[in-house]
């Protein structure tokens, strides 16, 4: 069997394709379309067999959510794992998505605070102070201060991510790999648990009794357990998905209930 090798130009393809990371954002699976697009070129090379490529593409159509600038690093790590999988069919494929989820949390946290938090504020501060005096340096400096680090992190993130991935899975006995996969799975589950609590929001503003400062259903639920409904809903959807209910129906159901909730006031933003 000939081994399939990732070359520099494949990593460049990851870097270029990941430019679209925020372009097709949606609330169901967030950046999944963009992530699968990022991986598409590499997957085509790694999996000549259509059935293998179908499976790999499906993996990357699952939910993905991370800061745009730090996402190429994840794509780099994932590329090294797909390379491993393509050359070694016994490689545990579930570890690929587990790794993706495990990296998503920390890199989104770091990326948001560095790029959306600090860098944007610095770039805007300097840019605005020049532009206010009518100087063309304003927009130019604004774009340079933000984008030089942005594109450096994107480019070297892709390369470093790939290298880190290769060294992690490369020289490793299979028994150790199992332990590492388990540890990554733990991190992934912590991240998902945290994201369910922070990113799914359900608010029932109905009042329980009369009066101006009456308790609402939501405050009652919060006193039982914060983010209780998001947790229950996530596991409920997980259950009905396993039973074969189509995602599209779930999506429509949520939209309809949300609009009805806004009409009759049993749901609020």
């Amino acid at each position, binding site marked *: 069997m000939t081994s399939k090798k990732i070359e520099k130009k494949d990593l460049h393809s990851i870097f270029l394709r990941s430019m*679209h*990371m*925020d*372009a*097709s*954002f*949606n*609330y*169901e*699976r967030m950046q999944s*379309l963009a992530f*699968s697009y990022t991986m598409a070129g590499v997957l085509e090379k790694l999996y000549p067999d*259509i059935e293998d*490529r179908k499976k790999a*593409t*499906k993996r990357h159509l*699952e*939910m993905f959510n991370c800061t745009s600038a730090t996402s190429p690093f994840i794509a780099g790590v994932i590329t090294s794992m797909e390379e491993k999988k393509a050359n070694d069919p016994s490689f545990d494929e579930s570890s690929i*998505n*587990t790794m993706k*989820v495990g990296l998503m*949390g*920390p890199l989104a*946290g770091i990326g948001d605070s560095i790029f959306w938090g600090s860098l*944007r504020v610095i770039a*805007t501060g300097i840019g*605005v102070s020049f*532009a*206010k005096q*009518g100087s*063309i340096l*304003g927009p130019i400096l*604004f*774009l340079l201060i933000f984008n030089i680090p*942005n594109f450096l992190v994107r480019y070297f993130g892709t390369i470093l991510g790939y290298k880190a991935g290769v060294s992690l899975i490369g020289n490793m006995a299979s028994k150790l790999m199992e*332990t590492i996969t388990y*540890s990554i799975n733990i*991190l992934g589950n*912590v*991240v*998902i*648990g945290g*994201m*369910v*609590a922070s*990113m*799914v929001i359900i*608010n029932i503003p109905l009042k329980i009794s009369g009066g101006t400062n009456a308790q609402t259903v939501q405050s009652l639920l919060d006193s039982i357990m914060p983010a209780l409904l998001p947790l229950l809903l*996530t596991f409920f*959807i*997980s259950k009905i*998905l396993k039973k074969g209910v189509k*995602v599209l129906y*779930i*999506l429509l159901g*949520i939209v309809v209930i*949300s*609009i009805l*909730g806004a009409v009759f006031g049993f749901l609020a*933003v």
Partner: protein
Amino acid sequence: MLEIIGLFIITFIANMQDFLGSSFIGRPLVTGMFVGLLFGDVTQGLIMGATLELAFIGLLAVGASIPPDEIIGGILASALSLKHGYGIDIALTLSLPISVFGLLVKNFLYVIVFPAMTHKADRLVDEGKIKQAANMNLIAAMTRITLLTLVTVIAYIVGNNTIDFILNYIPKALINGLTIATNILPAVGFAMLVNMIFSKKVAPFFFLGFVCVAYLKLDMIGTSIVGLIFAGIMYIIMNEINQNKTSSVSGNGDEYDDF
């Protein structure tokens, strides 16, 4: 006519920012300069852009929340101001309805159209049309760019009163309903992830992450650090167990020497 074509080009390129490495080319600070160029007063455009940038700052999308659209709001406000000589306050007030309308269009795309396109991509992969599935990303992106550009340019042509008029006819409940859906919908994506990576063996760690955020109010970095620590602890424990297993098999009970 030239104004409209120019505005179309500026808006189109500005809306491509998320297509080009999330590079902020659509921020009011940048578009103000180009709108100024279009109306023959770059200096005024720059000043306008800077003021609008400050007005929109803090409205930037962090995580999953989407603020009123600063790309089309910024362009429209500076165009109106430069054309009619409005002050910044009036221009900003006039651009608010279109920013809200832009948000409505975005929410419609993010809640209904793009998820449907993702499902379409799922189906295309099943049918073996993998190239087309990958291209759904481009179709989604171009849909958004084109739609938001058209909304801005049309709003500029028909004038602000018309937009206000249309907004009045869109039921408030629909606008709120879509926003509520944006908060609930991520549960679907998470449920799919849960089906893939959640199991009894790791269940406690899922709830650990949940508690970190729900009760301890940690942010994502803090929660991830807690996750890394527990992953490290379990790695050490599992490694230890594995080594004991191998030594008890191959070492002929060496570990009993201590007794």
